[in-house]
């Protein structure tokens, strides 16, 4: 089947973020409005001209509500993409599709979350005395103490270690690379806190083999981008980040429910990111070797490690050889999560990765990869993920 995707016809023209904190002291609607206004100002666009808004299905701010907050004249397009962290790259793709179809011309894509002071995802899914039902299949997991994302990813990490000889040291290199990048990024929650490999190993176990520093941060904040046609973006204030490729993929053997049922996959140590990479690189006419810089969804260190294998930056089980000292830092084979990622910048559920991927194309990252021309960003891979390849105009 021929792919009808048209590279470089759509673009990200504006980016915006709020501060990242443990307690924003304001509502998710206010955060969303601030990030969206920052993205529109960055693009040099009038907020009242926004005609489309796309969000993820876990956001508490409705698209029409954000439209009202921005004072838009008439919102003619909106959409929900899910689930949660797998959404951001797909949200950009949906906005691009809407512009391509003529359903909107100026689309704000956002994620707003009080992830520390409000709803904490690390608190677990168990609510009430009985778990499950309604096709969640949680009744097969929660009663057995499998209640949080960290516990799920711990199971995956243990199996990866057993199958491939992966060690905590490899996971620690991911954590310390992200931290090093955060130390150079004044906006990062961990900007002032350094981390050595020894610090990583000394952090307490939360769910073995994963420890505190394998877990991402919990963050209050919001990020937004503006999607429009490449043609229009060229006339706006910032150099456009063209969408060379966009992809979503569930892959085969996705399993029903969300996350925990992925423990029933034939292999629990590969995800939809394998099929995703094939679609993404085919549409872009590229290979992993063409990628200059990558923002890889890192709710946990192991999440990023498996994507590097699935996407083809190294073979299955080879991350332990691929990830050496410096591999993931600027100057290394694959500079990754150059803002600090979810592990050390903040957790805006995949959306801060999109913002940083655009900065790398503009040359404005605090950990800029010199001459970066191809910028990859991925969104959570477990039961269906998404990704973008961005390039300069």
């Amino acid at each position: 089947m021929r792919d009808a995707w048209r590279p470089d016809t759509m673009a990200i023209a504006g980016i915006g973020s709020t501060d990242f904190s443990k307690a924003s002291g304001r509502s998710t609607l206010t955060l969303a409005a601030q990030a969206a206004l920052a993205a529109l100002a960055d693009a040099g666009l009038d907020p009242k001209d926004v005609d489309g808004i796309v969000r993820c299905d876990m956001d508490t701010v409705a698209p029409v509500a954000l439209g009202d907050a921005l004072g838009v004249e008439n919102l003619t397009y909106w959409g929900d993409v899910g689930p949660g962290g797998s959404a951001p790259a797909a949200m950009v793709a949906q906005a691009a599709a809407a512009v391509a179809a003529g359903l909107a011309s100026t689309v704000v894509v956002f994620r707003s979350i009080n992830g520390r002071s409000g709803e904490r995802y690390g608190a677990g899914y168990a609510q009430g005395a009985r778990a499950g039902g309604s096709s969640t299949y949680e009744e097969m997991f929660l009663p057995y103490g499998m209640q949080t994302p960290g516990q799920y990813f711990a199971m995956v990490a243990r199996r990866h270690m057993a199958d491939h000889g992966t060690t905590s040291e490899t996971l620690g290199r991911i954590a310390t690379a992200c931290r090093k990048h955060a130390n150079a990024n004044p906006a990062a929650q961990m900007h002032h806190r350094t981390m050595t490999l020894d610090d990583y190993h000394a952090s307490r176990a939360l769910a073995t083999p994963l420890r505190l520093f394998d877990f991402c941060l919990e963050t209050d904040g919001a990020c937004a981008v503006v999607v429009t046609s490449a043609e229009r973006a060229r006339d706006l204030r910032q150099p456009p980040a063209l969408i060379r490729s966009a992809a979503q993929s569930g892959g085969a053997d996705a399993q029903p429910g969300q996350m925990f049922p992925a423990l029933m996959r034939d292999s629990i140590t590969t995800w939809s990111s394998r099929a995703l990479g094939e679609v993404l690189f085919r549409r872009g006419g590229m290979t992993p070797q063409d990628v200059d810089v990558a923002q890889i969804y890192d709710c946990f260190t192991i999440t990023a490690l498996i994507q590097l294998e699935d996407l083809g930056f190294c073979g299955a089980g080879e991350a332990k050889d691929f990830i050496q000292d410096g591999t993931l830092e600027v100057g290394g084979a694959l500079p990754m999560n150059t803002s600090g990622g979810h592990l050390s910048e903040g957790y805006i559920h995949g959306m801060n990765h999109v913002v940083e991927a655009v900065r790398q194309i503009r040359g404005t990252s605090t950990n800029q990869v010199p001459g970066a021309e191809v910028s990859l960003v991925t969104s959570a891979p477990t039961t269906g993920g998404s990704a973008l390849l961005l390039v300069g105009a």
Partner: protein
Amino acid sequence: MTEQRVLPLTTDHDTAPFWAAAAEERLVVQHCDDCDLPIHLPRGVCPRCHGERTSWREVRGAGRLHSWTVVEHQVHPGHPTPYTSVLVELEDLPSVRFLGSLPGRLDLEIDQPMTVRFERVGDTTLPQWEPVSS
């Protein structure tokens, strides 16, 4: 008052027969009557042949440890840490896996033999998995 541990909803359309069998201390797996696929997780339409006729077959409660985690960070007051969650695949149907939970920090090995045990909590029975004692 100590908080209760999380128990399964046992009345879901797709999983209720699993829990009903567990109450009789039987471990069962849904199978497609048309193409014989073990359907796990269970559901009303076979994902391979799209048949809607299924039956629940009793299986041997022998398994192998596919993975595990020792949970040290407590999130639910009814599940005190440390505890060990195990992911067990059936010896006879390796594509079928179940969760189990044991108190404390267990010293385990991938692929080690595991056996089912039925744990009664109030009016609910949970199939549990524990290492085969050597």
